[in-house]
């Protein structure tokens, strides 16, 4: 069914439009009326608020201000308090003038001629009033305010004074006339005249005050008395010429006085006796009255106007309200009527159309609705019919489409389910991967935290890419963040080049590059060992070169930006400073050990040679006593062997191979015992100071050798202080702990030590000298002044005594050498140096067993013993010696070399022999020993040591000491 063509005319629309327009018209008319009424009302209210009210208020304020000003002015006149003047000024400035300004600002005040005139008149009156009041306040406190008083003070008083002066002169001249009773009467009359003039003067002054008229009569009486008395006096024949002349002057002045007095009285009695009051009464008050009357009139007028405006406003309000109500009612009626009319015309077709729509929705409508009218509703009906037909057709198509759509949905659903399953699997796998990755990262983080090394990544351009581990010691990198910085920004240029070269080598060879280097860090110079390995990943970063987008965008999308990939290496750097130091110390120790072994070996062999030479020379010497020249030559040879023996002695001391007889020693006693010797050695320019700990523990050391060592140190100190200075000897107990390892020699085991410090204020040593200080034959002294074996001997002695030695020195700041010797807990038995009972060194035929592996030496020993008066037996080794001891019970002393081949050396032999034969004396001899020292405390007291090479006399002395020692001592 097709819709009929729509006509251009739309009756229903016109009907609705007219209906609405009529209602709107009624509303507009009503609104217009309401607006007119409201504006009228508004104008009245504004008038009330802005004109009539303020006018009335201003008028009343003006009245108040005028009254205030008058009251203040009167207060000023009568009381003279300056605060009234302030009040007067306030009245004008804060009340009258603002009120006048407000009045002038009221348009209604100027709108009418009469009001304008009133305004101008009021303004002029107020100006006059203010001026008048100003003059009044100005003259109130001036002397001229009361003309009578002014005249009195200025003219009458001087005149009265003149009168008194004339009378005084007259009285004085009369007083000088003596004796005559008539003259006394004249004198009395003069006095009366004086009194009368004074009375008149006082009376006149009284007339100036309040109630002055009461005193006027008294003044006139006094004046009359003065005149009568003056007449009496003038007629007196007793008056002298001079007196008469005075009286004439008095008469003239009296006339002046009277004239002035009359003028005073006249002024006092006039209205103008007080000019301020007169001005106030005659001028100011009338002006104020007029101004106030005008202000009252203005206020009244404003009040009346105000009431009228209020009444008019009330009327306008009522009219407006009623008009609005009426219009509302009319509009309601018209709207109801028109609405009912239109509803009937529109509602019925629409209702039938609604029913048809419901049927259509329910699918029951199969036929078109008849068109009842040729208006918009008819048109709507036709459209509805067209819609119905189209819906039927669309429903058919929709059913077909639904069937096809359901089929496609089923297919798509199956595909999605398959994809979903695949995605689920991928998610599970990815989660597992993520988990593994997190675990790996955690392990890596823990590892990075755990390792003490520096681990970082540096790219091929030398840029720190990542800091994976900074270690606990940040001294190598400092506190400055280095990530993103170049090697050249962190390190010196040569070091930066060195590092970059390592990185490049690692990247080129793809092999780990190991390097050691020394860096200057905040904590000093540190050694590091780095291992640089190439990374399999490359770092990408945006290139500064941009790519132009095909469409002209300068930057383009991110995927088109150019990136540069940089290869990098991971570097693990380890602080090996301690290891390096340890290596250095080890090398030094090994060097010293090697030198020691070398020198020790040489010294040992040389010692044996010397022993043979010395022994034979001595024997030869004995044979040459009868040949002086040869004897002297033999003596020279002996002295040379002595020097050689001393040299080897020192070398052995350095190489820790000298035989030491360690004893419990109190270093304090030893030092104190040497003080005198040290003073003589040092000379007068060097002062010795000691700081010795009172409770210093004992140490185990060979005291004789230690004295030599200390003396060597003192001599070195002296040579370091050619200009004089101070040598300080300090002893203290010290405990080396594990934590002190960094500050002490590494080979020094922790434990208790006795420390002796020898400090001088000398020239000090350079670092190069320090490194070689203990080397034998190293000396900084001039050639011939030092052997270079002093410190070496000290070093060897201390080391052989299980102690340690340190040197602290800087050029120009002196040197401190510290000797650390092991402490012994208990006070060991001190061994006193045995002395021979007498000077004899000859034997008493005692049997001596000589044990010596070197046949030449043994032969010399046997020969020397025989020469000394002993009966010598001999053995080449320990086993033979034990057998000889076993077979020969009378042996009084075992004289054995310490160093012997075989399992048992001299010391062990002595131990065993004394074990088997208690009381057996033992004399050990050696120029070289493997023993660090021989602790005499472990042996009996019947042991002595004789150092090779020895002289025959030395042997005899030692033997006698041992053999003469009491059994109890043994």
């Amino acid at each position, binding site marked *: 069914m097709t819709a009929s063509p729509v006509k251009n005319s739309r009756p229903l629309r016109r009907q609705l439009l007219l209906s609405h327009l009529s209602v709107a018209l009624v509303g507009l008319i009503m609104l217009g009326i309401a607006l007119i009424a409201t504006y009228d009302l508004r104008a009245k209210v504004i008038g009330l608020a802005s004109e009539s009210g303020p006018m009335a208020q201003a008028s009343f304020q003006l009245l108040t201000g005028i009254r205030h000003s008058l009251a203040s002015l009167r207060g000023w006149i009568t009381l003279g308090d300056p605060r009234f003047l302030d009040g007067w000024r306030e009245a004008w400035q804060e009340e009258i003038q603002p009120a006048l300004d407000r009045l002038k600002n009221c348009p209604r005040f100027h709108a009418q001629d009469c009001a304008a005139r009133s305004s101008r008149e009021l303004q002029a009156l107020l100006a006059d009033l203010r001026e008048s009041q100003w003059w009044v306040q100005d003259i109130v406190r*001036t002397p001229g305010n009361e003309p009578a008083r002014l005249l009195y003070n200025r003219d009458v008083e001087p005149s009265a004074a003149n009168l008194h002066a004339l009378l005084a002169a007259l009285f004085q001249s009369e007083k000088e006339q003596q004796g005559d009773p008539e003259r006394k009467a004249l004198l009395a009359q003069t006095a009366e005249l004086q009194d009368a003039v004074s009375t008149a003067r006082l009376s006149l002054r009284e007339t100036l005050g309040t109630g002055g008229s009461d005193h006027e009569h008294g003044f006139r009486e006094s004046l009359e008395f003065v005149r009568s008395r003056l007449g009496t006096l003038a007629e007196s024949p007793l008056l002298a010429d001079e007196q008469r002349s005075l009286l004439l002057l008095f008469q003239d002045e009296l006339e002046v006085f009277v004239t002035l007095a009359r003028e005073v009285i006249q002024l006092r009695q006039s209205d103008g006796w007080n000019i301020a009051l007169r001005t106030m009464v005659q001028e100011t008050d009338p002006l104020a009255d007029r101004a106030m009357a005008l202000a009252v009139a203005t206020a009244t007028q404003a009040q009346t106007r105000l009431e009228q405006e209020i009444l008019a406003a009330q009327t306008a309000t009522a009219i407006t309200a009623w008009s609005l109500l009426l219009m509302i009612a009319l509009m309601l009626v018209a709207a109801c009527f028109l609405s009912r009319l239109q509803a009937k015309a529109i509602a019925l077709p629409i209702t039938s159309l609604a029913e048809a729509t419901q049927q259509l929705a329910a699918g029951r409508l199969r036929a078109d609705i008849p068109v009842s009218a040729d208006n918009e509703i008819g048109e709507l009906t036709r459209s509805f019919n067209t819609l119905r037909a189209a819906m039927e057709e669309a429903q058919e198509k929709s059913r077909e489409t639904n069937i096809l759509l359901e089929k496609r949905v089923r297919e798509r659903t199956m595909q999605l389910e398959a994809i979903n399953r695949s995605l689920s699997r991928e998610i599970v796998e990815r989660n597992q991967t993520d988990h593994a990755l997190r675990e790996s990262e955690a392990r890596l983080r823990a590892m990075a935290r755990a390792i003490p090394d520096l681990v970082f990544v540096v790219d091929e351009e030398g840029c720190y890419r990542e800091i994976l581990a900074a270690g606990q010691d940040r001294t190598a990198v400092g506190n400055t963040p280095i990530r993103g910085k170049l090697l050249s920004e962190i390190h010196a240029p040569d070091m930066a080049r060195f590092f970059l070269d390592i990185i490049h080598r690692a990247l080129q060879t793809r092999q780990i590059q190991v390097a050691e280097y020394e860096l200057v860090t905040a904590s000093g110079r540190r050694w590091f060992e780095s291992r640089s390995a190439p990374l399999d990943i490359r770092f990408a970063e945006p290139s500064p070169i941009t790519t132009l987008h095909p469409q002209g965008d300068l930057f383009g999308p991110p995927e088109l930006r150019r990136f540069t990939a940089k290869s990098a290496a991971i570097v693990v750097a380890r602080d090996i400073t301690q290891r390096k130091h340890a290596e250095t110390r080890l090398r030094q120790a090994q060097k010293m050990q090697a030198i020691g072994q070398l020198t020790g070996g040489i010294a040992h062999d040389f010692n044996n040679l010397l022993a043979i030479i010395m022994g034979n020379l001595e024997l030869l010497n004995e044979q040459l006593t009868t040949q002086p020249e040869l004897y002297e030559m033999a003596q020279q040879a002996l002295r040379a062997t002595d020097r050689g023996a001393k040299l080897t002695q020192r070398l052995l001391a350095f190489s820790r191979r000298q035989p030491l007889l360690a004893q419990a020693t109190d270093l304090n006693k030893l030092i104190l015992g040497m003080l005198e010797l040290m003073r003589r050695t040092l000379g007068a320019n060097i002062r010795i100071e000691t700081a010795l700990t009172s409770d210093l523990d004992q140490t185990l050391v060979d005291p004789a050798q230690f004295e030599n060592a200390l003396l060597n140190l003192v001599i070195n100190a002296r040579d370091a202080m050619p200009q004089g200075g101070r040598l300080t000897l300090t002893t203290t107990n010290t405990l080396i702990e594990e934590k002190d390892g960094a500050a002490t020699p590494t080979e020094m085991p922790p434990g208790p030590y006795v420390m002796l410090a020898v400090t001088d204020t000398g020239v000090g040593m350079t670092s190069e000298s320090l490194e070689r200080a203990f080397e034998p034959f190293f000396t900084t002294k001039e050639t011939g002044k030092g052997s270079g074996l002093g410190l070496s001997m000290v070093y060897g002695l201390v080391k052989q005594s299980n102690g340690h030695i340190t040197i602290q020195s800087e050029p120009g700041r002196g040197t401190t050498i510290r000797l650390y010797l092991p402490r012994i807990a208990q006070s060991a038995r001190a061994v006193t140096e045995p002395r021979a009972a007498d000077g004899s060194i000859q034997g008493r035929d005692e049997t001596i067993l000589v044990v010596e592996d070197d046949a030449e030496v043994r032969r010399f020993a046997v020969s020397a013993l025989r020469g000394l008066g002993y009966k010598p037996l001999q053995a080449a080794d320990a086993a033979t010696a034990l057998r000889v001891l076993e077979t020969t019970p009378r042996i009084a002393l075992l004289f054995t070399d310490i160093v012997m081949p075989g399992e048992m050396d001299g010391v062990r032999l002595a131990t065993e022999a004394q074990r088997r034969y208690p009381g057996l004396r033992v004399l050990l001899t050696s120029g070289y020993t493997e023993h660090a020292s021989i602790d005499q405390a472990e042996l009996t007291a019947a042991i002595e040591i004789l150092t090779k090479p020895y002289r025959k006399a030395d042997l005899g002395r030692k033997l006698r000491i041992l053999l003469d020692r009491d059994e109890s001592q043994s």
Partner: protein
Amino acid sequence: MVFGLLVAGFIALAHGAETSRPLLPDAETDAMLAAEINAFSRDLERLRRFMGAPRANDLDIGIHDLMPRDLYFQTLTLWEQTDRLSFEILRTRAKPLPTPTGAIGPQDALRRLQDAHEHVRHIMRQLQITDIGGSVEGDGMATLDRFNALLNLNRQLNLLLERHISPSDVYQQVTLAIGYSARLLARYPDAIRIPEEPPFEPDKLPRDVYVRLSECLQGIVRIFDRLGLAVLKIDTRQIDLDRLQPGDVYLIATLIVSQLNFLHTHLGITQPPPQPIYPGLKFPAHTYQRAAILQAQLNQLERFLTPGQAMAPSPASP
């Protein structure tokens, strides 16, 4: 109040008290005036010698080309001082003289001078000074113009008085001038007739007052010029201010009053200014302070005036 009568004379002049006087040609009057000044000067010098009073130094206060009214007011001052001298010496006082009405001419000044001269002659006779009217040495008046000659006579008379012209007298004159100015300002509704007094400034000398009053006088000259009225000429640049005495300040104050009085009469203002009264002891600083009010008034007057137009009385003016 020393010169209260002078003030009253000013005011009476403004009121226009009636008097009859013969009219003489101006040239003849001027010659007579010069002769009278000389005669007065000689007698005054004789009297000065008799009294042993110091001689006043001539001082040119820089005011010239004066109008007859200015001469008249100087002769009026002269008369007041001779009357005061008469009272101080003879204890007698003359009755106030009638004040001329209308425009003041040289005849009025001559008459007032003759009256003052008669005062002096009377005193001389009473003091039995015989050579009245004779020749006296040191007659320097002839070299000066009339006005300055009268000024110097006034200065000399002041030295003969027991009570000299004081700052209080100047104060009184300035107050009178304020009254005149207030009356003139009453013609303008928006005018502040008597402005606020400025703060008191101590340590002022007569020269300070003179400077301020001369500024006022210059203001008056400008007002007269705007109104097209003839007025005196003032040039104070050559004045030695350090030689100024209160009497000199008084003279310029009276000049101000005379100008304002003339303006008052010229504009037909009938209401007289308030009569100033003796203000008591005043210092130059007080007068200096009060003169500032006058200066503010004159500034207002000058501002209200339209150049080339006479001041039209406003309906509200008295």
